[in-house]
């Protein structure tokens, strides 16, 4: 997890270590909690949360549920969310569940 400054926004970045599935969501959940807990130091300043799924080959329903949960919290604080997902199957899963309507997908980063 780190922060990056883009032209007019501070982007909080979470790197997922691999797939986002029932057995692998915890590191991402913990990282998101650190960014989204109101009393967290890391919760301050950023306006975009970017989740990097650069090595992910699969997202299952538990992973999707986590994304929805993070998205709702991000939206609640008036920020937006991005996902970097170069894998076509991951992109397809996000597209046909219509999460791409709520989250900006970045295919090549």
């Amino acid at each position, binding site marked *: 997890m780190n922060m990056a400054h883009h032209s007019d926004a501070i982007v909080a970045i979470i790197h997922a270590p691999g797939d986002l*599935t*029932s*057995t692998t969501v915890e590191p991402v959940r913990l990282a998101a909690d650190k960014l989204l807990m109101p009393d967290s130091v890391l919760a301050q300043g950023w306006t975009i949360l970017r989740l990097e799924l650069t090595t992910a*080959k*699969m997202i*299952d*329903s538990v992973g*999707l*549920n986590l994304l*929805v*949960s993070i*998205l*709702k919290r991000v939206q609640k604080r008036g920020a937006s969310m991005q996902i970097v997902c170069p894998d*076509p*199957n991951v992109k*397809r*899963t996000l*597209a*046909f*569940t*219509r*999460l791409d*309507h*709520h989250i900006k997908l970045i295919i090549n980063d």
Partner: protein
Amino acid sequence: MSPVASQILVVEDDPVSRRILEMALGRQGYQVIAAENAAEAQAHLSPAKISAINCVVTDYLMPGINGLELLIWIRQQDASLATIMVTAQNEKDLIADSLRGGAVDFLEKPLDLKKLRAAVTRAVTQTCHQRHLAQSASAIRKLGLVQQRMLGAGNGPCQGIPRVYSHPVHDAGGDHFNHFRPTADRLFCLLTDVSGHDVQATYLSAFFQGFVRGALSRGASLEEIFRDFNHFLLNNTNDDGESLHTVEEVAASVAVCGLLVDFSAGTATVITQGAPPPIYLPPEGEVQVLGDNNGVPLGWFPELSLHATTHPFVQGGVFCLWTDGLGDLAAREGTSPLSLAYALQQSREPGTSLPCLTNATDDILLAVVDLAGEKVPEHDFWQVISERYHGGQAAEIDRLQSYWRRSLLLMAPELPASRLHDILLGSREALLNALNHGCRCDGRQSALFQLDCSRQRQLVRVTVSDPGPGHKFDIHRHEQRAGQDLPTEHRGLILMKYLANRLRLDQHGTRVIMEFEFQSSPPSPEFNL
């Protein structure tokens, strides 16, 4: 080996040295043929004559072809013929080259006749030994070919005629299969696996098959025959004729599976002693293991606990019998035995191969009895996986997913990566739902996971059944709500709907059936989640 019977070819361009060699070896009782150069020697080593020569003693330095070149030529003609190189003193490089070229020994000039005689004796013995080994290997290869023919590998597909697939580790093996019809409406199949992968195992396996067939035709029951042969093994397979009482002392044992199919009664009767129990693949539903594998191989203990079990079957199913080599290789490759059984059948089709067979450490034999008489590799659906998982296994889902993946790819390597992803993700969702909700994570409850594949139809079908009460919600209405409110429940079910080309929920969702076409992904959904 008597020296009188051995012929030595001496190749030496110097007449005096050649004569000395002739006389020295002749006195020892060898028949000596002399050649003054390599070309003349090659004439004595023609295909028709070479097997009569037991040793070649050749000088290195000769006009024309030298001794090392002749040595290499001899190795190409008959690698078992031992050659001794004669060199000048202190030619270490040449000696090394000669040994690399296949010379069994070397002698330095001037010749020490005592050393010459000793070297020739060793060389003749080595040639005889090598030729004996080559003859034995050839005989075993022929035996293997006979065994393959006896396994009925050439049988065409028709009702009840087993198709047999054999992959012995060596040219001949201890796995055997036989089938015959005691009456018009019954088929008897006998699969045997004799301990060891050698000629003894091959012989004993064939002997046992004949023993059973003969005794059955005389009206003996299978139980009687197995007991008789158990007694025979215990009393006749060790040198002193005493009974064998421990596994360490067992010289030979026979793992056996007998399957009697009664077409009129629609039943299959099974006795298994030490071999894997046969598998029944019905046209629909759960794969059944017939009987158990509690019996010990014949030849281990004086007392045998024989237990025949009878099972009903329906037309259109398939019986599979295999030796433990198949299960061992499947475990090593991390695939289901059924996927390996399918791939083994496919590997006999022209232009196909099964690379994992090179990893087999045991003989493999598979017999497939197709009750419908169809050509099995094109059987409508083949059950790749049919397993029960208990409610506590959700944490093992990644391991299971890898196992499904390897099994599917072994059976259908042409499956596109995107469809494989969809099948695995859909299967994962269905099973996790069944384990977590249907079985309530209870280790005493189990869900049935079935993965069937039809390469002919280019279709994979996943069926997951659980013992739970199911659900009552309307999936279509849930989809609408999911699009608006982004709820987090039942997303797996909706995911399955869009991964599969067809999704069916039976019995209030306790039975989920998904179908995936090999090539076409399902259309994009109309609803938001």
